[in-house]
């Protein structure tokens, strides 16, 4: 159960544009264990999708700078396109952010699926569609959806179709990028639990579940990693991150989460002043220091990853001093 299937070490990937470098993934390390759901959280623009694209398809202006990524023991950063293509869908698969927008209004779902898998070298024959139907049953969709147009399906139903296709070859590792954010609450619950069920049934191996919504991660992730402005912030078991966050950013994020039972009349939550820095040519130092109430001189230097306890790591110079100050 503790076998590592994906290992990322000090990964850097930047967007190289005319004005310089956008340092969206800057020294990220993590490992994903077999059979786990690892949640990746952080606010818009912190580099979550960039991390996903770095693993799957680095298209200009995104460039791999340095670091190591091993999937099932194989170095995928220095692999040829052809070699990597062989791993796609079977070993590594992705449900991209905004996948729902990929449906073409004039194509029936069946044609959409056929075209998509053909791109990945799968023949959309009868046998293939038998498997698709099996999976449609699993996600509680009637086979008749195949002959419908996207317009006739709700967002939640379309997301289920996407999930069927991305998991059709039982991938060992799958990245799910904001698969719930465009959906109604009821579909959110269905889709998120569906992913966990696919994992429980052994249809998919491990999951990197990207979302800005910590309360969904609380529901399905075993561990949570938080990023801020391209940097690693904190990683640990879900209950530990939610119940005992140690980084000032994680603390602030969690204490600013509205939850049923808390009304402004009774308890006013406080947010974080300011906005994240621009990542273009950003220099040394903790990237949260501009908004951090505890920032000090030492924060001008980039904090190193430090161990809090088994499985709980942090990048903050001052976490021990800050201690249990709840940031409220």
């Amino acid at each position, binding site marked *: 159960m503790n076998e590592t299937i994906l290992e990322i070490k000090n990964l850097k990937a930047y967007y190289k544009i005319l004005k310089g470098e956008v340092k969206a993934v800057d020294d990220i390390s993590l490992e994903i264990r077999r059979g786990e759901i690892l949640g990746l959280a952080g*606010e818009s623009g912190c580099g979550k999708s960039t991390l996903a694209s770095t693993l799957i398809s680095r298209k200009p202006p995104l460039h791999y700078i340095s670091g190591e990524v091993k999937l099932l023991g194989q170095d995928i950063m220095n692999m040829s396109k052809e070699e990597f293509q062989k791993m796609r869908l079977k070993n590594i698969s992705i449900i991209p952010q905004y996948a729902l927008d990929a449906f073409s209004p004039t194509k029936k779902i069946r044609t959409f699926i056929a075209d998509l898998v053909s791109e990945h070298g799968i023949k959309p024959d009868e046998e293939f569609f038998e498997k698709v139907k099996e999976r449609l049953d699993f996600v509680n969709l009637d086979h008749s959806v195949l002959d419908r147009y996207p317009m006739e399906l709700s967002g939640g139903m379309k997301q289920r179709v996407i999930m069927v296709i991305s998991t059709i070859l039982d991938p060992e590792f799958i990245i799910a990028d904001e698969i719930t954010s465009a959906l*109604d609450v*009821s579909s959110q619950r*269905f889709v998120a639990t569906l992913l966990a069920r696919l994992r429980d049934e052994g249809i998919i191996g491990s999951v990197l579940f990207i979302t800005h919504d*910590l309360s969904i991660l609380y529901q399905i992730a075993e561990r949570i990693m938080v990023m801020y402005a391209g940097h690693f912030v904190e990683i640990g078991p879900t209950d530990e991150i939610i119940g005992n966050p140690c980084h000032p950013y994680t603390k602030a994020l969690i204490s600013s989460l*509205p939850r049923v*039972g808390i009304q402004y009349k009774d308890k006013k939550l406080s947010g*974080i002043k300011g906005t994240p820095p621009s990542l273009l040519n950003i220099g040394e130092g903790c990237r949260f220091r501009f908004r951090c109430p505890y920032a000090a001189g030492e924060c001008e230097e980039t904090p190193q990853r430090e161990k809090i306890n088994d499985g709980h790591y942090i990048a903050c110079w001052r976490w021990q001093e800050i201690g249990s100050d709840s940031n409220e």
Partner: protein
Amino acid sequence: MSEQVQNVMSVRNLSKVFKSGVFKPKYTVAVQDVSFDIKPGTIISLIGESGSGKTTIGKLILKLIKPSSGKIYYKGKDIEEIRNKDELKEYYKKVQGIFQDPFATFNPLYRVDRIFDMIYDSFGYDKSNKEERIHQVLQDVNLVPERTLGKFPHQLSGGQLQRLLIARALLMDVDVLIADELISMLDASTRIGVLNLLVELTEKKGMSVIFITHDLNLGYYISDESLIMYKGRLVESGDTKKIYESPVHPYTKMLFNSVPEIGKRWDPEEEFLPEQVIKDVEEFYKENAGKGFAAAGENHYVLYSID
């Protein structure tokens, strides 16, 4: 009638049917027989799944579209009768909307400052401290004036544009603000600040807010009263705490059953299927035939049947 004067806004039996297509027209019932009141200085959240008619209600109140039937009263006055230019101007000075897509509100050819110039010019506000006040409201919404003013819409993010629109509402003396998915573009860390700001506006200035949202946690945090919409109909309404604590309508129940809550995990044993609610609602209406829209408690109403 006296009841309608007390409320800043009263909606009565409002319906909207959209007709699309010319030769083979298709009719969409977006809003059906919806009634509710908004008291001054309160926040009311409008909750419901995609396509349930939330934005349509907002547009009807803002007179951007005409109702198919039903009435909307602003301080007792039927808004259909607001027709001449001066009256309309007066109405829009007091009733403002911020919509889901903030890009649509801004003219891409003009710098964003124009939204402030426009209200100063058309509503005749005192210009002596214009700049100072604009800076103040920008800071109130967590925007840096120097990094915001002078920019074109495409140079700012959706969240920043939304906050600019809130800043504009701050600058005006708005009675009713319709905030349509205002928060969806903002991140957790900036979100609470904007929510608190809305609350302060209601407390300090007596403004009322119709807060349209998907997010039940946000709805609970911010609103005094809630309206739950399902397929164009208002299915449950009243005191927020009561609705959240003891929902009656099957759609409301399903909503609260699916909201991800910190500290409470979804039951993995439970067979949860969003489609199930369609049957549940049908059955509920059948069981309660004849009851219609009725009280379930003090300031708590439920649509028991649609006969």
